[in-house]
């Protein structure tokens, strides 16, 4: 399904989405992030600082509450994600491509009910890029495209005063149908315009991973390369690269205790990151990944090798956040290229 939406009708469309809570990028305190869509949402954002991954996989999630009265069986009260359908507007294609990757992780050998409960009621309305959002974008070199529809339900393409809307999934189709007369039929001239826009977007120069197809094998061969430590030299060991990554999904589970007599509290899942030293710290005090280089290797190898070994695709979608936000400018593209190039 293809249709044309006047930009001035965007908010009417959002309002017409009965039964959906809509979110769109908004600028607050200098930070672009997804917020409940205001009545005058406009999709005029660079990419958001944080990807939309938190909608399906929030940074903090309560599994259940517990209470243990002495001599009694522990009492567990499950906490379920709040029901409700949510639609996220303005998702860039790189972040769209993260969605099926996260889906694979959370439905692989374990079906994560919390993730599934959120994911099944989520829809993503993407926005094609006309030009790279920053100099650090590299989606094309990892198999993506600035106009990719992967993982999205609808893809909007900006045609000046109007959007060309393409329904990618049935959910997307339903979202567009809910807009009713706000959408006009797409004619041949609009089809031509969108084709041209997409071709121009894809033709925009980008930096990139030199040979993504060869990366998994090359990183395997380069596992013991001294380059890892050298490239991690400036690393300060923070979690920016992983917490802002659209596909990083590691987590920790903790019991937050709120009372001792009776013992009670809640079991909570929070994001965790391979970049923190305590991520792999054993209780004996031994840490198998005790250097910055070994932790950089883990992050990069997960994106470009382990994930590929597990699921047959690269995990990195080339959004460039880990590069643009790194306090010392560690560049995953350069890391892959240098290690792979040294083999």
């Amino acid at each position, binding site marked *: 399904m293809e249709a044309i939406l006047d930009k001035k009708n965007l908010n009417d469309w959002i309002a017409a989405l009965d039964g959906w809570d809509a979110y769109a990028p908004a600028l607050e*305190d200098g930070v672009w992030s997804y917020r409940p869509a205001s009545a005058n949402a406009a999709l005029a954002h660079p990419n958001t600082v944080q990807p939309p991954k938190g909608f399906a996989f929030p940074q903090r999630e309560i599994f259940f509450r517990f209470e243990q009265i002495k001599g009694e069986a522990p009492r567990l009260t499950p906490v379920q994600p709040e029901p409700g359908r949510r639609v996220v507007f303005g998702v860039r294609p790189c972040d769209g491509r993260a969605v099926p990757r996260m889906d694979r992780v959370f439905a692989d050998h374990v079906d994560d009910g919390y993730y599934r409960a959120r994911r099944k009621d989520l829809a993503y309305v993407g926005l094609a890029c006309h030009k790279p959002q920053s100099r650090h974008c590299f989606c094309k070199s990892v198999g993506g495209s600035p106009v990719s529809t992967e993982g999205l339900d609808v893809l909007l393409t900006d045609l000046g005063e109007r959007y060309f809307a393409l329904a990618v999934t049935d959910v997307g189709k339903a979202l567009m149908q809910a807009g009713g007369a706000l959408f006009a039929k797409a004619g041949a001239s609009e089809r031509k315009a969108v084709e041209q826009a997409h071709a121009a977007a894809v033709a925009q120069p980008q930096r990139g991973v030199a040979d993504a197809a060869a990366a998994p094998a090359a990183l395997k061969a380069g596992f013991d390369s001294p380059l890892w430590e050298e490239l991690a030299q400036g690393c300060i060991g*923070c979690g920016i690269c992983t917490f802002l990554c659209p596909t990083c999904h590691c987590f920790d589970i903790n019991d937050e*205790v709120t009372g001792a007599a009776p013992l009670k509290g809640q079991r909570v899942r*929070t994001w965790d990151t391979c970049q923190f030293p305590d991520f792999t710290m054993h209780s004996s005090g031994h840490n198998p990944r005790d250097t910055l280089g070994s932790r950089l290797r883990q992050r990069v190898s997960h994106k470009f090798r382990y994930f590929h070994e597990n699921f047959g695709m690269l995990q990195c979608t080339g959004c460039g956040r880990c590069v643009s936000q790194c*306090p010392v400018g560690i560049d995953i593209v350069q890391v892959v290229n240098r290690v792979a190039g040294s083999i």
Partner: protein
Amino acid sequence: MIDLGALHTQVRDILETGEVRAVVGWRRGSRGMLAEPVTIATPEEAETLVWDPTCFHNLSLTLVEERKKPSWRPGKPIAVVAKGCDARSLTVLMQENCFRRDEVYVIGVSCAGSGVLDERKLAQRLPGVEPDSAAFDGDAFVCATAGGEDRIPARELMADRCLECRDAHPKLNNVVFGEAQPRAFDPPFAALARFEQEQVGVAERWQFWQRQFERCIRCFACRSVCPMCYCEECVVDSINMAVGADTTAAEKANRIRWIERSASRADNIGYHMTRALHLAGRCIDCAECERVCPVNIPLRLLNNKLEREARVAFGYEPGASIDLPALVASFRDDDPNHFIR
């Protein structure tokens, strides 16, 4: 202006003569204009060192991290290229016995008349432009892109910390480059004063800070980048608890956790307030925490607030001297008492 050639010569000399075992400085980075920290050990590498308005990093951090490694051995000093603020942090680290004075060779670079730029200000001034390089030129920053050069008055782009710098000329140094001329930008704590004028009442303050703290994603970049945050274990972690086969569930559950890892508002506040208080009398306003924060939390305000209180109420200035007692390990008979019943 700093004569980079002279700095290179100095670095080459001290490496050649073996006066130091390594030099920590900045080199051209791979990410756009940004310089990156580097540790060099051979005289040949001296030429790779750079000095420009993107030399943000407080390199005393590299020294602290080096010190923490199991491979650390005492020996010949390590040299560090240090701006005024970085030299102050080295002073605090020596005051706290992290290093002896003779373990560090300080190559001072004076920011009097320069200072580093603020990437956020740059993004506002030149939206969508990501320069390939930035350079000092008199009282301007020159940002170069493929499309040409932009000359922007330094005042407009300079980081607040530099506009308000207390000692642009590194006091602690073995050698120093650049002049000691006075600067005329903002008085200390100018940004803090602006904030206090804008957010007056308790309710307004809370509204502001609530929004900031709710945004925190607990990536701990502020902690990681801070040379003063060198604790082996932080209050937000609990990695030292020994768990054995006979550790009971109750023991695990009841271990002391001041602040949970959860990125919830209350835990975020607990973390940031604890950090601010731990930095009281130690923070020397390199403002790296604020720079690296991916979600723009104005952490410098918290640290500046306590720095100013320490100065006004206790006459204390962090980083002023190695021989200073710690702020919270000292007192004066006439410390404020008015708030006590």
